[in-house]
């Protein structure tokens, strides 16, 4: 039992430290949001990729960056209704 508790604690520590670490009850919404946020952060973080997309969208890099960051707030729309 102690082992199980320990594993649980370790998992929780991991989840707190690394955003997006899943658990048994991860919902599809959480999972997809997380992936999308990761992708958007990657677009902003890689200068070449940001430039590629800014040229494609016909906007300055700073505006493309802002768009991606804004999108990270809610990347895949509203969360689903939860049944209590």
């Amino acid at each position, binding site marked *: 039992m102690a082992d199980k508790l320990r594993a649980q604690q370790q998992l929780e520590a991991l989840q*707190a430290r*690394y*955003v*997006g670490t899943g658990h048994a009850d991860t919902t599809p919404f959480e999972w997809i*949001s997380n992936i999308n*946020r*990761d992708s958007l*952060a*990657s677009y*902003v*973080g*890689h*200068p*070449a*990729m940001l*430039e*590629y997309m800014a*040229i*494609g*969208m*016909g*906007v*300055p*890099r*700073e*505006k493309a*960056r*802002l768009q991606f*960051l804004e999108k*990270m*707030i*809610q990347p895949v729309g*509203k*969360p*689903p*209704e*939860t049944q209590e």
Partner: protein
Amino acid sequence: MATTSNLFMLSLTVQPPSSTTQVILGQFSGTREQQLIIGSGSRLTLYRPDTHELKVKEVLSHDCFGIIRALSAFRLAGSNKDFVIIGSDSGRIAIIEYVPAENRFHRIHLETFGKSGVRRVIPGQYLAVDPKGRACMLASIEKNKLVYVLNRNTQAELTISSPLEAHKPQTLVFAMVGLDVGYENPIFAALEVDYGDSDTDPTGEAFRNVEKQLVYYELDLGLNHVVRKWADTVCRTANLLFQVPGGADGPSGVLVCGEEHISYHHSNQDVFRVPIPRRRGVTEDPERKRYITTGVMHRMRGAFFLLLQTEDGDLFKLTFEMVMGPDKKPTGRVARISIKYFDTIPVAVGLCVMKSGFLFAACENGNHLFYQFEKLGDEDEEEEFTSDDFPADYRAPYKPVYFNPRGPENIALCQTIDAMNPQIGCQVANLTDGDAPQIYSICGTGARSTFRTLKHGLDVLEIVESVLPSMPQAVWTTKTHRDEQFDAYIILSFANATLVLSIGENVEEVTETGFLASTNTIAVQLLGEDSLAQVHPRGIRHIRAGGEINEWHAPHHRTIVAATTNDQQVAVALSSGEIVYFEVDATGSLAEYEERREMSQTVLCLSLGPVPEGRVRSSFLAVGCQDNTVRILDLDPSRTLENRSVQGLTSQPHSLSIMSMVDSSSGGSSLYLHIGLHSGVYIRTVIDEATGDLIDTRTHFLGPHPVRLFRTSVKGQPTMLALTSRPWLAYSEPQTKALTLSPVNYHNIEWGWSFSSEVCPEGIVGIHGDYLRIFTIEDLNKNLSSESIPLSYTPRGFVKHPEYPLFYVVESDVNVLSVATRQKLISDSGVTNGDSTVLPPENFGYPRGRGHWASAIQVVDPVAQKAVLHSIELEENEAALCVAVTAFHDYGDEQFLIVGTGKDVVPVPRGATCGFIHVYRFEEDGRKIVFHHKTRVESPPKAMIPFQGRIAVGIERDIRIYDLGKRQLLRKAQAAPAVAHMVMSLATQGNRIIAADMKESVTYLVYKPQSNRLIPFADDVIPRWSTNITMIDYETTAGGDKFGNFWLLRCPEKASEQADEEGDGAILVERNYLHGTAHRVGLVAHFYTQDIPLSIQKTPLTAGGRDVLLWAGLQGSLGIMVPFVSREDANFFQDLEHHMRSTAPPLAGRDHLIYRSYYVPVKGVIDGDLCEQYLTLPREAKENIAGELDRDITEVERKVQEVRMRAAF
């Protein structure tokens, strides 16, 4: 792992990326001079401004092998030198300094804080430093923030604390800046959004109410922890923060920039807000709101201002006014802020204002610009908007304000620094019939787009070009006294006469010089202190300063065939094969050595080395003989004219020169014998200064004519001018000190000599036919010279005419008004001509309009006229996207230009009304194109390629083969779908077509003429987001993807054979496997290049060179992959790379192997750039590595240098 690959290539950078991530200003050398460091791609480049020439010059460029994301300069209290913190993808904080004495970067600290790679929660994206250099904050996009305390120990060395955390989960950071608080506790301001609530609220209410906050994080230096000190809600659109000076200089606080407003916030001040003025003009949308995209704060003595740039490129000057106290002195309270239009420059990613009055703009697209301030816009008539007229609350309505854009008034352009970023496409072709091909590339965006021609060679600046009465054979320059700084005479030798010109304000002929005018001349030399020697076929004429002339006559029936001189010695070779040797004695007269040396062969050329400092003679005389040898004779008094060593050659020596050059292996300079052969080969070999032995020979083929060598100097560095079918310069590369040979982009001069005058201290004088030309070589850092031709819009693709040296470029720009719309707006507005002056779009950009496209097809002649010959503007909101040239079966040899367009294209999310395929006919030898017809397709085509007298077009997921009909194109065959998402690029050979998908790598298809079917038969297992592919051979494809990878894929041989078997290919269709095709392609090589490869070509780059793979990246980089011929070489470089990884790990702390294996483990490619860093290592490290490799340093260096010299530049 790499060892299992059966193909090895060496990756080399030909041109580093020029896209700027960030630019910082600081006193990096520890002197008062402000310098620039630009982070581009994985490179840090240091520039220093030259305030006399009004230029910035590159000092050092270093590849960090990591993604540079943020840079910041800081200075410890009491120090006068700025250090640099790098925020990269290494998961580490790296602090470096520039060491001016050794011209390199030195890493002071490297502390690990997280995983490597660009991740959402690993800091490295944002970097802010306390202006007093006491602390820095590194943040990630989400959640994590780390604060490091920077301090100094008793030895005045930098120390760094363990990180203090200021994490906040579910919080996104938009911008971060260090606050200027004087010597109070350091504060960092961040622009944050907490998305925690919106993630759990299904009604969407929380999302609508999400607030953006300006948060202050205070580092308590006493308690050593970070607290969230203050927060204020700002406008949701806010994107940037700027520091406002504090302490004694200003009110402290930050400027928050958002959509159409700039507001000032601070914890103890009121909020002030000004709008961003909109442009006035008939073609401008009066409702369009702007953002600030970059800016700079500049302090002057007792004052400061901010220059902020909008997305249009307009610069605004923002100033603060303080509340006046009773004593008429400003108090600490802000009264108002005001903004006014300053000037317009192209959109930049970074601006730097230097104390010396310069503005450096690292432009987002195209060349970087260096400006000088003429005034600060203080007393002009530009309207000023103050915060008094605008509500401080961001929710309150306000009236927009307008300004009139105008030409530059406050700044003047001094220099443009070439940058190919963004580079959309690239082709290598030899259109000028030169020895080596040229690189043609399409670069830039919008009105700053260019078509560039890159040529291997050094740029020259011509100073004089003058016609002479007849054809001279040779030219010299000389001083008349040793202590003079500049040359006094130019001596020209004709077939049977000699002419002396004096250099002064005018260059004119002089007669009373003592030179024998009635004969041709072989050599001219300043001897001793102030006497001159003229060597002519019949003897030597020694002209003393007083006018006294001593003649030495050649023996009867013999003439002088070759001569060499230095300021103490003269040696001549007679037609009989004798060598006569003279020295200047103590009295200043020329004394002949009593013995003559008989060579058994006819002597072709001679060379004496320069007299070493503090000695009376050079101890070596090199003699080139007809029997394909070069001999070194001793000149030491004890063994005068004795043989020291001999070297056999492949051809007769034509020219010799002993000259020392800067050298990478010794760290200083070493003495070299340079040999030019009849066969056009240049040889550089080291003379062992003790024994006279010739060691370490390097050869290079320069051209088909005999090579003539002349000593010159460029920027104080001794260089060798080698003249053959075209002029070349041999020099030591300024940074690596490696021997480099570059052609000089100039006329084919036949003779050259160094030239020095007041106007031109380091020039070269040359003869070209009956022209006398004087020129200088400007820069040895750059050996690719570029020419650019401006284009109208962002280029999307280009193609070369199959016969003529012409290119067809398709261009399109989104959200830009087309020419027709612009003209309609101007004519509708009814303004008179005077009011509607169109400002140059290169600086001001085109008028913008949402959903509009401006597009054109342009014919470019890069060779003869160097201009756009013809352009067709597309109408009805069509955008040209791809282009191809093809001949059709039924139309004989006639070629057609095919252009794929899209109508009403929306980039994100992807959409369009429909697509078209236009067909154009060529007229006037391709100099003009005429519209033939167009075919509507349901979606815009992205890739086209000629295929067996038809055209293969990629439309969405399909590949279709069209033939030319009378009124439109006729679909003949198709593969629907051919790929999973969208065809990005096509390549073909024989019946095979290879399609690259947007997300799913490549698919190999075969066309079966019997059944008229296109059948996919091989695909890939890894999702590669391909950008461009090219076929290397029938089985192999090279490609690049959007993440910055370069790869080679090969179809299994059996699958390849099976696909080409006779029949209708039914067997291929039947054998589909797991929803894919029947076969899988295998990975041959993989390499992370960091830049996104947008075009790849297999081509040789040098005259007679082997094929290499040239890839061109979006950020302006050009790289090559050189295949190894022998396994032995591959092993050597693999070992060297391995040792380099451990001896010289990358500066920013990224592990090199992991960096190159960013997405997929590196395979079959060795990083030549890392291997080349061997040349810049300290001697000791070089010795260690060479020892490990069981070779000596020169051997390792030679191998490293030769690969580049053979394959490219």
